[in-house]
């Protein structure tokens, strides 16, 4: 009799352990997304390109034998060779070194400005979505207002203001970051607000209310974390946009200005017809660098969206 009960208990125990095993193996939504991402070839390729680009820009300048500003009057405008892999510019500065340092600047402008605009957009969107009422109306009307003014003309004007104020070239990078983020937080705010509005009506939020959780816990443990996946996608795409916008501004001479190199202002040399026609090594490498970086970010963002929301 006793052995019979023991046998059943043991069997049930084994069943429970097996069940726990399978439960343990099911992934969280985020883990699931990461798993899907690791099994998508385009995403891995994009990550590899991006990683290579970042590594080269961060460590490259220390590894090249040339200094950023070391000039060589005898070797100005020389074509790519074994000594200077991508040739030299009109002052005899090594193009590859400048390209890598410019990459540091352009990439950090892209990342930091998106970080800032996520901070702004997330706060504004969360406030608007959660509080509703007059706060919502005020924030969203202001966002609509900013969205009605075309952004490139506005950026160009702000760039001109910077030139007028005679901002130190070293500080200009930070101003450009600020400008880009001031114009791009609106779409992020809209996304976050929409997410919060729809999440608020879901059953799990009702459950948190029924369970009597504190407002802080409901907000920070249950509502806001659920908005993060979409935000990651929007932010990734935002980095690509910011890098492109920075390059337009710098190319027009209104963004990051020399002597600080950026991918955009390095292409400024193409404005001189002789350089443009005879010396493509001056302006083609930065253009290709922008293109590769931006396409990698765009592909990665797209794969992220698929990984986070497999229904689409």
């Amino acid at each position, binding site marked *: 009799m006793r052995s019979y009960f023991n046998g059943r208990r043991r069997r049930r125990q084994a069943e429970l352990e097996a069940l726990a095993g399978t439960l343990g193996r099911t992934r969280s939504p985020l883990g699931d997304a990461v798993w899907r991402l690791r099994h998508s070839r385009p995403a891995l390729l994009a990550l590899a390109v991006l990683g290579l680009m970042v590594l080269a820009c961060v460590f490259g300048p220390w590894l090249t034998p040339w200094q950023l500003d070391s000039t060589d009057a005898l070797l100005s405008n020389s074509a790519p060779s074994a000594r200077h892999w991508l040739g030299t510019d009109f002052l005899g500065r090594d193009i590859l070194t400048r390209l890598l340092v410019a990459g540091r600047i352009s990439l950090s402008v892209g990342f930091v400005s998106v970080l800032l605009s996520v901070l702004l957009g997330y706060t504004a969107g969360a406030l608007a979505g959660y509080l509703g009422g007059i706060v919502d109306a005020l924030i969203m009307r202001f966002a*609509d207002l900013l969205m009605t003014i075309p952004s490139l*003309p506005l950026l160009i004007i702000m760039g001109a*203001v910077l030139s007028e104020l005679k901002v130190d070239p070293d500080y200009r990078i930070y101003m450009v970051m600020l400008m880009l983020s001031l114009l791009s937080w609106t779409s992020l705010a809209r996304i976050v607000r929409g997410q919060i509005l729809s999440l608020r009506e879901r059953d799990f939020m009702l459950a948190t209310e029924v369970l009597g959780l504190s407002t802080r816990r409901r907000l920070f443990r249950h509502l806001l974390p659920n908005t993060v996946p979409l935000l990651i996608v929007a932010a990734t795409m935002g980095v690509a946009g910011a890098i492109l916008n920075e390059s337009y501004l710098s190319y027009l001479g209104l963004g990051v200005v020399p002597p600080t190199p950026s991918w955009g202002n390095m292409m400024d040399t193409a404005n001189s017809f002789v350089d443009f026609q005879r010396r493509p090594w001056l302006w083609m490498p930065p253009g290709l660098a922008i293109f590769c970086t931006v396409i990698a970010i765009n592909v990665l963002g797209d794969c992220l969206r698929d990984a986070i929301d497999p229904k689409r």
Partner: protein
Amino acid sequence: MRQFILRRVLLMFPTLLGASAVIFFIFALTPGDFVDGSISLSPERALELKALYGLDHPAWQRYLHWLWQLAHGDLGFSLQYQIPVTELLDRYVWNSFLLASVVLVLYWGLSLLIGVTAAVRPHSWYDRLVTLLVFAAMSFPVFFLCLLLIKWFAVDLAWLPVGGMIATGSESRGWAHVLEVAAHMVLPVLTLVMLQAGSLTRYFRASMLEALALDCVRTARAKGLKERTVVFKHALRNGLLPVITLLGFELPGLFSGAIVTEKLFNWPGAGHIHIDTLAARDYPVLMGFTLFLAVLTILGNLLADIAYALADPRIRIR
């Protein structure tokens, strides 16, 4: 429906007022103006000119004055070109419009064709190639693409003119003139079509994929209709609707001029004027033009909303 449109139209006015304030004060707070920019003036003459252009009044007075003028359809007077802003815009906006309208027709047609054909066979090699090209188009910096095209087709091969709208000093008339302008348009049009077709193709593809998964399409297939009828009659109509409403958003783009492209191809359009007047601190033109674009953007949004409400009655309830 009438109430919906009326509410949207009424909502336009406060938005417009806000946009005008933002635009004005960005310029008003900018240090330096047209008079400060010219170094050849004596201090007395500069003061005189400032009084003449009303630059000596406080910003809020100038804003009200500007609004008053706007209400009478007067956008101000260009300091650099010495003609009214409306006249200046009238002279250059149509060149931009010519460029943009050709581009619009071409890239909508191209995107529709490519997007739909890619959606019919998802994950085929053709679809993958399209996806890759779409990403490439979305990632090209405008000026880099312009430079590459100029370098290859205008400089190295010398097939097409480098820039401008007509050859320097040309006085061609009639068909010769049309052909000349057309030849100058090829490269800018190519650039803009390549850049803009990317994201639109994605919209068409996604929308068509959604339409192909609809129950009515399955029913059409179950009835034994030909695949061509199913795709072009049943799925395409459903797939087109959401994208067609995007046409409203194209309205500002038709007149705004592509700033970077027009500058690089030296196209005498609104975008080119934009950069030129900026260099001279010709604020009346810049303010008038930016406001003009804001108005078009608001109108475009309104059109898109109305088109969407017409297409999908569920939207109107909001």
